[in-house]
């Protein structure tokens, strides 16, 4: 079985979110970068399937120079090889544009399974894996919270539905799966893994390597801004002791739960 995992580099949850002067992008100062949360679960699921049923796991990202790190981290955890697609031109692509590039680069590899995260933490489009499925003409399933290998031609996946409901779905290979958090326990890279990573191949692809005159995009950010608060929140401040005194008073006399 041959799998590909799409991994996106995103700012971590504690990074400052500051709108740049152009009002359509964020300032990169002070950001620490990390692997998108659900992509780590996607990688782990691909590695587990490979360990149980054999094959190869390839990781692929589109990003700026710093994004090479998410490829290296995945190789250190056990992926076999990396594809690093990088070009300043690709920075502001929408999901359609990115999926078009992935389709172009990955088509000839004939993957049985393409894994991606359910959605990215920063842009939350939740679309890339499905658009890619359409471009490559594969089966797909979203919000996958469990997998069960059937044979070399198909797989069963458990899809999460709202409010505690689930649904098993059988898919023919090739298929594109978007993975939900909690499906497994993502591993850490071992020291040995980090040593092995250094010998694993990474192919770098830039716009010149793509046979695409123009990368199609269907939407763009017109303006970014801080949301205006709609609810009147009463903020309690002071020393921890002062805060606790005021909170206790509210619990006792206003909310009346004591």
């Amino acid at each position, binding site marked *: 079985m041959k799998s590909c995992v799409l991994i996106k580099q995103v700012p971590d949850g504690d990074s400052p979110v500051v709108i740049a002067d152009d009002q359509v992008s964020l300032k990169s100062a002070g950001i620490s970068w990390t692997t998108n949360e659900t992509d780590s679960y996607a990688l782990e699921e691909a590695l587990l399937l490979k360990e149980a049923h054999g094959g190869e796991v390839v990781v692929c990202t589109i990003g700026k120079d710093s994004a090479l790190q998410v490829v290296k981290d995945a190789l250190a955890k056990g992926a076999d090889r990396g594809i690093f697609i990088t070009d300043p031109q690709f920075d502001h692509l*929408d999901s359609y544009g990115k999926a078009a590039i992935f389709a172009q680069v990955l088509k000839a590899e004939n993957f049985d399974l393409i894994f991606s995260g359910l959605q990215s933490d*920063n842009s939350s489009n939740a679309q890339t894996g499905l658009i890619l499925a359409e471009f490559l003409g594969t089966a797909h399933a979203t919000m996958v919270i469990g997998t069960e290998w059937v044979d070399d031609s198909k797989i069963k996946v458990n899809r999460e539905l709202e409010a505690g409901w689930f649904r098993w779905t059988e898919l023919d290979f090739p298929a594109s799966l978007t993975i939900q958090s909690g499906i497994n326990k993502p591993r850490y890279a071992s020291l040995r893994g980090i040593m092995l990573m250094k010998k694993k191949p990474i192919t770098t692809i830039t716009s010149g390597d793509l046979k695409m005159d123009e990368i199609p995009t269907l939407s763009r950010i017109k303006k970014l801004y801080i949301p205006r608060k709609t609810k009147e*929140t009463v903020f309690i401040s002071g020393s921890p002791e002062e805060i*606790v005194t005021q909170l206790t008073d509210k619990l006792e006399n206003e909310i009346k739960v004591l």
Partner: protein
Amino acid sequence: MKILAFIQIDDGTINKMSVETLAGAQKLAAATDGSVTAVTFGAVPDELKTFKMNEILNIQAAELEDYSPLYFIEALSRVIASESPDTVVFGHTYQVRDWVPRLSARLKLPFLVDCIGFKTDDAFTVTRQVSQGKINADMAFEIPALISFQSGAFRADEIEHGTTAVRTLTFDLAAVPKTIRPGEKYQQSGGSVDLSHAKVIVSVGRGIGKAENIPMVTELADALSAELGCSRPVVDYGWLPHERQVGSSGQTVTPKLYMALGISGAIQHQVGMKGADTIIAINKDENAPIFEIADIGVVADLFEIVPRLTESIKEKK
């Protein structure tokens, strides 16, 4: 603007987010001197006919009786080809997440997901939340476009009523590939915890840092005679069982008091708890979206506050 509103029917009833979206579609039609056509697959619940629209377009095919993505995509592609709408709107349900992105790729139409509103002042734009709800983005695109709206983007009780006639079309979908085969839906055998009747819930998020810190919060919950709730990562990491998860894929709660400790307030969490009478949020980040819906906010390190609060409550009792 000619608007199609896709109405999701779950076991014979209209999905709540579809009703909200229909209310939004009515507002968009009013703002653009346009029209609204509701599209349903399979059934037409009687309630739908009481909403004000130009028409209800009902598509019949055996394969549309139960959800399966490739059939839904094919059916709505045909509707869009024959009706030529300017926009098609959806509620951002889990089901919509599973098929509409692929529909958009097939038709090469933009799909703006999880929007919280639209603007028609200078150009038609929609607003999305990015960076975990900390930033709003107004999005530009060409019509025709597909747009999904977040839960709560519009109010269901603002929907306009009228009587609307149904036009039925029957599709032959036999040629659609059968590469995706959904099985039966099932519910995870319910745990012993029912948070939906709890009067007070103390809920903990990723800000708690590690499993070893959970007892600190349990003590506060005990002091308040409260149930313990949590956000999704706390369950993903195995710190608390799934039966305590609040949110779109967990439980929906409506307590008198909901205390959110180290929870950022993602929309998927909010939909499960925003109906609480009073929300108290303690979070070290003043920009956390939880403060959008909190009645009482404390910007502080929860480790500084929670143990002291537990002591203070115990003294009162």
